[in-house]
């Protein structure tokens, strides 16, 4: 049962106050895109055993979507940040690299 701090309202929210939204920073592919791109956008996910960037909504709270960077194995949370961006902020990337020096921000859309 995770606790994630909502970056908008600062509340340390219990998982039961949150709604999960899966992998973050997917690039949307619309009309005109190739079958492969569209399939990847809709269905292909990283599902990593380790550092993962996820979307969460503070559903029982301020209602805002945010992103969390966490380790799916150790449960460590490296940080949360608002959803209106294309990648994690530098300070969170640096925090991840303290534990996983070789970690790279995954390419969007798998």
């Amino acid at each position, binding site marked *: *049962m*995770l*606790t994630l701090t909502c970056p908008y309202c600062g509340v340390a929210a*219990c998982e039961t106050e949150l*709604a999960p*939204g899966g992998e973050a920073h997917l690039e*949307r*592919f*619309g*009309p*005109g*895109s190739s*079958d492969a791109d*569209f399939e990847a956008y*809709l269905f292909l996910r990283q599902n990593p055993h380790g550092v993962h960037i996820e*979307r969460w*909504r503070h*559903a029982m709270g301020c*209602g*805002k*979507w945010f992103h969390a960077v966490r*380790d799916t194995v*150790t*449960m*460590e*949370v490296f940080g949360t940040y608002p*959803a*209106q961006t294309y990648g994690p902020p530098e300070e969170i990337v640096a925090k991840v690299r303290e*534990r996983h020096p070789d970690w790279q921000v995954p390419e969007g859309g798998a």
Partner: protein
Amino acid sequence: MSSRLSHGGRFTNPSKRLEFRFNGKRLQGVEGDTLASALLANGQMLVGRSFKYHRPRGIVASGPEEPNALVNLGAGARFEPNQRATTTELFDGLVARSQNHWPSLEFDVGVINARLSRFLPAGFYYKMFIHPRPLWKHLYEPFIRQSAGLGQAPKEPDADGYEHLYAHVDVLVVGGGIAGLQAALAAGRAGAEVLLIEQSPHWGGRAPVDGVMIDGEEAGDWVNDALQALGKMTNVTLRDRCMGAGIYDHGYVLCYERLTDHDPDAEGPRHRLWRVRTGRVVTATGAIERPLSFAGNDLPGVMLASAVRDYIVNYGVSPGDRTVLVTNNDDAYRTALAVHEAGLTVSGIVDARAAPEGPLVQAAQEAGIAIHAGRAVAKVKGMRRVTGVALSAQAGEGAVLAEIPCDVVAMSGGWSPVVHLWSHAGGKLIWDDASAAFRPDAARAPTGADGAGFVIASGCANGAFEASAVLADAFEAGARAAAEVGATGDPGKAATAEAPEEEPLQPVWMMPEGASAALRRKAWLDYQNDVKVSDVELAAREGFESVEHTKRYTTLGMATDQGKLSNINGLAVLSQALGEDIPNVGTTTFRPPYTPISMGAIGGEARGELFQPLRRTPIHGWHEAHGAHWEPVGHWRRPYCFPRDGESVADAVTREIRQTRDSLGLLDASTLGKILVQGPDAGRFLDMLYTNMMSSLKPGRCRYGLMCSENGFLIDDGVVARLSDDAFLCHTTTGGADRIHGHMEEWLQTEWWDWKVWTVNLTEQYAQIAVVGPNARKALEKLGGMDVSAEALSFMGWAEGELGGIPARVFRISFSGELSFEIAVPAGRGLEFWERLLEAGAEFGVMPYGTEALHVMRAEKGFIMIGDETDGTVIPQDLGLHWAISKKKDDFLGKRAQERSHMTDPARWRLVGLETVDGSVLPDGAYAVAEGLNATGQRNVQGRVTSTYYSPTLDRGIAMGLVLNGPDRIGEVIAFPTIGGAPVAARIVNPVFYDPDGEKQNV
């Protein structure tokens, strides 16, 4: 015979007598007894039967690890099966019955299984009941069901109340023995907010029983001092009868508090489930003594050595006059001395070690107790309880050297740290050779949000067994936990203890070492599930090398005690059989809860009226008062129809439809979602959300729209009204309001965050009432106020004003095919407006109608219903809704997906109307069959029914369905097989059955 000792026990008050019943017999106990101690005091050693062989079973333990003494407790609405007698506090009037026997505990027919035990080895059920297949249903399954499960299921609703409680603390200390107290003292002094819980009603754990001296005083006195000191700390909370049930991610811990089990007539909830968030957990959960594996170790009278000591010291109960100790370690000598000091006879200590020595051994010798070194119990004598033991050399195969008559065999195979909580959230274990046990590996603790370990094991639970080591370890744990959560105070100093030094134990996994196959078949590992040494060895021979597989094949550790006694012994036997080291074989997974917790506690307040939220419209009370027949829709309850006295539900629906089509009906449509979408980019945004064009809608007009997921499938539909240049009001389905509002916010926040659009979910601000039928306008005109004439308010228009003095927004939309106005008024005036409409409509015979009339009327018009015609695999094109899919737009959610080859496949199932040839009503969900069989030998299908009703308007069954190439097959008759009846023939027709030109709604 077990009996009450005259000197009393630490916990008991012999002056306060309590009456209770066991299997109908009236018995007496004393205040402070557990049911187990009271049964022993009454000479009741036999307390149940084992699961598989129905072997007689006696009390083995004195705590939550007890596998045998499970009872049906209480009666009627307070009946509960599988309650452990050892953790059930006695109260006046307690009623218990033993389990798993017929007709009685003493004479049990099922014991025949024991005679057949040679033929019922591990995996018997898997091997026996597979073939022949046809026997499964009528022979094997009923047999297995009959013999499955212990105890009985309660038959009445639970009379008690339960609750949850959320708590946030810095440090949770689980276990109120000297380790837990010491850890709490350290963390509390350092200034952390501490919650200290103890599963039993007694603080101090084993130390007072074991005669430990702490800081120069007796352990019991030190415990009282510690409790007083903790009680004075405002940052420390103490709860007894409260068990740490499970540890989960990020410091979430469930604790199970039993508030009134010991006093069932007390006020308030019976159990409380604590849902704790803590920075750190200190587990001070102690250790559990292991049995020894020797033949006949399951006979009533064979007990854990520590339990024998507990019953004598804590409860003043003698388990028997003559006790033989069997051990591989020094701790059991404490029991010998306790038995001796109680004035009972120790008939000998059988010690597997060749040359036991040390202060405890010496004390036993000085007390004149015979020690049989290097010896083993070859077998226990007795039928229904112990009458003696036969001794052999531990190193041998079991040749009997001597026999000792006795009533009790007190065994000790060493102690296993209680590592359950540590393991729940992923803490790893290491094997400790010295104590022959798994203990927490501090380097591999469960990690929390900060990446650091959040569980700290301490004391015996951490493998520190000697009292001074326990206190030092627990102090360290408490101080560290406090420091790690930011407490900066001085944790003080660790207490110090004096206890006799102990010699190392000798691991003993089979007694004697080279025991014959016959002896191994009588040496029990799991008492409750009847798993023996021979079963685990058989599993190993048959290739079950993984401990998890062996567990499931043999059922070792799968009983209600979850292997608290059997786990380590079982995997030691397995590792020997496999020729592996124990750490290489590993343990099975420890899962919460630590011991079973009540279903009531899990449910908390969520039962009866509070089981789930019931959403009520502003008119709900009126519906209730007027006999609504309810239909659950999401969390709402909507009237299905309003049957009158003596009227059937079907007749009521028919009446409501006829009256609405002929004159006037009212529908409470308040549950429909109403979402305000406003801003300069609102039109552009809705063009992306709906398949059709919304930006071209004129203010004052309404348009029906479809919403698809990015996957192309229909997710919602409804009418959009343009309120002004930059504002739209989007109506959603009843179930869609919150979901669609969330959907909008998701796209706005995560994809188009630069678009200038705001949404507000106004669903609950308004009551919405549909006024439907040829007389709808007349009724509104009677109320007076705004102009609702066809000229002022044409079909698919909306207007704002007042009706009967109530502010109203009127939408001229129709889901029934009749002249219809949907009118939104402030929710607080909804009931008033509803009643005004009934008054105004009285002269037209106005009738409220329910959801079924709504459904039938929309089906007569061929309108789709989300959830009936759609099921998450249906695209608008399947439903003939091409007209609502814009071809002008470059993009909308779902557009790309609808271009996929499968979506554009001409051979999809498409919406049609279905008319039965005989006029009957098709069964809901029926499939139309086609020629031939599919790859799995089932009939091919070519369509299915999505909606089906009796239409009063047409006086025949009508249906909608999805049929392969359906619209191209109008007029064709296809067959729908029914369950247990003849197939029904239905003709494919246009889905619009009523007023296809829309003349009635557009007046």
